[in-house]
């Protein structure tokens, strides 16, 4: 474990070096929440009877807000940094180190997530809590959410690492990231809760790993599950995907390393 501490410190230091990324994240999250909230407020204003997919306006507002914040916390720049190392060729140096590359990346990404949570997520949350009526979660909800959010970080990391490794296949990593940012965010429920999606789309979303990143944790937080068994089910599915994605990322990494060796010939 100790071997990975320097990576965590380095990740944190480079983040604090580029403090402007905090501003970028904050503006992005605030804008995204703003667009969605204004849109759904107009929908509620245009309807006689209240509930959409079982959400009333304050709960949906809470969902939209927390979805962006969770997305922000999962944005740990691993995709950017891994693909950057691949493109510059720095990845060769990483291969020489007596540590696991995916693990060292995780160690570097974790403090980024936590710092983002503290320095960006909290202010954005407070801003909207001040502006809009929100739903306060229960303590059970918060507890379940904490476990679920931890698992969602692992899933998010797996996705980001895979996107980063795509740098071995294409030079337009920007394009891959646009795809990831829109498609993953959509199917994760970051834009609209899965409960509001039409049947077939919701079915696709439920079958994909991404719902474990946003929709799962927030359903637990807002108490939208059937009893204890339902909550355990959400967590179990998340755990399953976390393990599967970790395995997939490890496999992809091994394949990528083989490719480096071939090129280095």
């Amino acid at each position, binding site marked *: 474990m100790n071997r990975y501490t320097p990576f965590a410190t380095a990740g944190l230091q480079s983040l604090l070096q580029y403090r*402007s*990324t905090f*501003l*970028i994240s904050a*503006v*992005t999250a605030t*804008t*995204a929440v*703003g*667009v969605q909230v*204004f*849109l*759904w*407020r*107009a*929908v509620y204003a*245009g*309807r006689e009877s209240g509930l*959409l997919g079982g959400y009333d306006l304050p709960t949906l507002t809470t969902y939209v807000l927390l979805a962006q914040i969770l997305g922000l916390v999962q944005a740990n720049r691993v995709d950017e940094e891994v693909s950057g190392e691949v493109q510059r060729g720095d990845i060769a140096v990483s291969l020489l180190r007596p540590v696991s590359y995916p693990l060292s990346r995780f160690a570097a990404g974790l403090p980024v997530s936590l710092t983002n949570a503290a320095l960006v997520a909290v202010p954005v949350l407070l801003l909207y809590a001040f502006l809009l009526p929100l739903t306060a979660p229960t303590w059970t909800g918060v507890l379940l959410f904490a476990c679920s959010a931890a698992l969602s970080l692992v899933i998010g990391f797996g996705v980001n690492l895979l996107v980063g490794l795509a740098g071995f296949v*294409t*030079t*337009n990593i*920007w*394009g*891959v*990231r*646009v*795809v990831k*940012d*829109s*498609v993953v*965010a*959509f199917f994760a429920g970051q*834009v*609209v809760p899965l409960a*509001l*999606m*039409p049947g077939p*789309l919701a079915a696709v979303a439920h079958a994909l790993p991404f719902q474990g990143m946003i929709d799962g944790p927030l359903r637990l937080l807002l108490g939208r599950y059937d009893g204890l068994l339902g909550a355990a089910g959400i967590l179990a599915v998340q755990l399953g995907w976390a393990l599967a994605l970790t395995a997939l990322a490890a496999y992809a990494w091994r394949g990528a390393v083989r490719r480096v060796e071939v090129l280095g010939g």
Partner: protein
Amino acid sequence: MTPLTTASRYARLTWHLSAVSVHRLTEYRMDFLLGAGGLLLRVICQIAVIDMVFRQVPQIAGWRYHEVLFLLGFSLLPRGLDRMFTDQLWILARKLVQNGEFFRYLIRPVHPLFSLLSERFLYPDGFGELLTGIALTWYAAEHLDLSLSAVQWLLAPLLVLCGTLILAALKTLFASLAFWTTSSFPALYAANQLGDFSGYPLDLYHPSLRWLLTWLLPYAFTAYVPASYLLFGHAAMLPWLFVVTAGLVTLALVVWHRGVDRYEMTGS
């Protein structure tokens, strides 16, 4: 050199350099598909959200489904065009001043701004937005049985052009700040991000936000104002569109020139 020969020289250069970019495009086909396809998918997700909204209500803030689609489609036209021609400004904001490479653009026998932008003419990613925008606008207009008057047909391309100029000017303005701050990427990014509001009817928003998007960061003139003119014939804001375009372009060029002058001073 008369203004006319200068203009034709730049037009020829643009044509030639664009052709070079198209060659690059056939070289990196996968990259092109990813970039254009990525933006296409982003629009599809946006349409999906609009679909979900209109499953619940027949109209929002007085706009019907196909009208909102028309607005979204129209907003992509200037955005796609702008992305095709001015994306090098992102690089300027991010690092060209910081690492000193900007001098390269000063020693070529063309205007430095043109020299900078020409590096990425017809950057393929914009195609995705432009084509989706055309398709979406067309589809929505068909469904609305939109019949434009002769004046509207004449003005439509001009409105797209003005929208493109506004976006390009905003980008130039914020990217030029890098001459003072060495990196203006966060400012450019933040300003660009606020443009996301412009794909939806501005009637949805709080008046203060609407004011900001009209007069401070005038994204309203890139989609909402022209689209409401073409859809509903609301022409009251149109004169302002031309005033804002002219004003903003002038401002951007002035700031750009000041910035370039400053850059030369620090270089010597």
